[in-house]
């Protein structure tokens, strides 16, 4: 449960979510709550529809965090449309977000490399029609990032925006169909980008896992809390030193938790690392 891929999508509008729901085979998650949520039956993938605005985005992020029991290796994505004077229809990763109302600035991580270029984002409270070539405009990015950077791994948060309007493509002409069309056009790039993040997420997941034998041993013997901490560390070391040895044979004659720890410790202490 909750192993990678573990993904949390936040989108403002149902039309932005439609293709994601279809691609990841998400189903409506029935619950009594303020936001519409979708989730995968197979994987730990969730999507929340926040509604428009940064307060909604912030609240929906926190709500989804709790509702979905997000993990330290969960990927968080704010996906949606934005205004930009150039590159109509193009998708961008965001590496700088400015909240227009309070001038707070945020810098999403830049660890993934792919074909999607980076852009800056200005999160505003009302739709803008004075488009900039320097910043994309949206209404959720800063609220999403400010909240998720407190509850998720900073390097697994992604803000993806597709250019949906500018002075040649008026905001008033945006409708469900052209949003769907823009998302469909970029969905492959999104999935490729996500693949890179999933790899990173897996690394974090692995680093948080206890050795398999930890669970076997703790179900067989009664370890105290501090013994469990020591056991986890010793097992990690023991498996590195003796990858081919069978642990159950080694501890076969151990009668209790204390003797398991002594046995592992003495094996480790008596062996010097072979650096070849």
């Amino acid at each position, binding site marked *: 449960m909750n192993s990678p891929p573990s993904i949390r999508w936040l989108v403002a509008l149902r039309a932005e979510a439609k293709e994601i729901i279809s691609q990841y085979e998400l189903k409506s998650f029935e619950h009594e709550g303020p936001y519409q949520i979708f989730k995968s039956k197979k994987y730990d993938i969730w999507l929340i529809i926040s509604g428009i605005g940064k307060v909604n985005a912030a609240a929906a992020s926190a709500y989804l965090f709790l509702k979905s029991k997000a993990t330290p290796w969960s990927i968080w994505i704010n996906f949606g449309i934005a205004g930009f004077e150039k590159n109509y229809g193009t998708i961008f990763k965001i*590496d700088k977000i400015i909240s227009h109302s309070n001038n707070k600035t945020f810098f999403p991580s830049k660890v993934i*490399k792919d074909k999607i270029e980076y852009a800056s984002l200005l999160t505003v409270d009302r739709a803008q029609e004075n488009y900039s070539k320097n910043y994309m405009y949206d209404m959720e990015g800063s609220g999403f990032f400010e909240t998720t950077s407190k509850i998720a*791994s900073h390097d697994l948060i992604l803000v993806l925006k597709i250019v949906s309007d500018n002075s040649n493509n008026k905001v008033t002409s945006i409708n469900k169909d052209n949003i769907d069309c823009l998302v469909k056009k970029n969905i492959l790039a999104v999935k490729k980008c996500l693949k890179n993040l999933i790899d*990173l997420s897996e*690394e*974090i997941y692995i680093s948080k896992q206890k050795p398999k034998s930890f669970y076997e041993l703790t179900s067989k013997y009664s370890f105290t809390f501090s013994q469990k901490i020591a056991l986890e*560390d010793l097992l990690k070391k023991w498996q*590195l*030193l003796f990858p081919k040895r069978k642990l159950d044979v080694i501890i076969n004659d151990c009668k209790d938790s204390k003797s398991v720890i002594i046995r592992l410790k003495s094996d480790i202490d008596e062996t010097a690392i072979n*650096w070849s």
Partner: protein
Amino acid sequence: MIDTIYIEKEIKKHPRTLEILSKFRNVRTIAIDRYGEVFNRKNQNFRIQKKNPCLILAKKHKGFVLPAPEGFGIGSSKNYYFSHMYNCIYDCSYCFLQGMYSSANFVLFVNYEDFVLEIKKLISKKENITFFSGYDCDSLALEKITGFASYILPIFKEYSNCILELRTKSNQIKPLDKIEPIKNCVIAFSLMPDKISLALDKKAPTIKRRIATIKKLSALGWKIGLRFDPLIFGDSWKDQYQDLHENIFNVINISSIHSISYGPLRFPIAMYKKINSMYQNEKLFVGPFEQNQSEVLYKQEIEEEMTEYCKNLSLNFAPESLIFNCKSN
């Protein structure tokens, strides 16, 4: 390869910022107020960021020169260190930086002049001082971009009562091959047996290449520091350290050596826990370690035996006056 440079607005037009930027093509620049906005933030992950680190150009405001930890020195009565940069292009498993910072981005402070002002204030006290560079970064690895060594070396030429140590693993020898050797500047190389280095010094030049660089620099007339630091324990460590000493002393004239030092592997407890939790399969953290009140370190008998044994190896080639222990107390 660096593809993004964050620049503090205050130093956006600093000549050194402009010079550094001119060395990059197709790089994305992002304006920031202070480097802390992007560096060492809560929930950042050092190991993940290490995959694609960005460069941050910043201005340092205080703490230009700091006292070196007690027990750290190569003969002077006072020891200080300074860091024009945080983080390093190499990825060594034992590096304390990964325990100190949650971010692997490189922070480069471009106001070198302010470092020099502080250094000169200390020098004016007429004491014998050693200044160490390369504590929070590698002194030479990014020289082509930073030009820091080119800037700082000539300044020390005027102060013969002081020593500057540039600590490195790099085989990049610019600007050292272009200028006259400076008697009171030591180019100090971190060294460990080849097999161990291959396992632990990821992305760093091999020991063979480091020794070749030492040979070149010594032939050019530079004073060399040999830093067996950290000392790493393992199977057949005695044979490995013996081979290492022989390989070095066979190619370098003893008159080129300024000093030889041995530093044990030690981590503050919290730092050890943090670094250990980042790795699932790193043999280094198998130990055998013990823990005192503040540090995680090799068992005392191992630490003492390794230091003593390696010192004796050096004594086969060099006088005792050149040999130092670098051990924090």
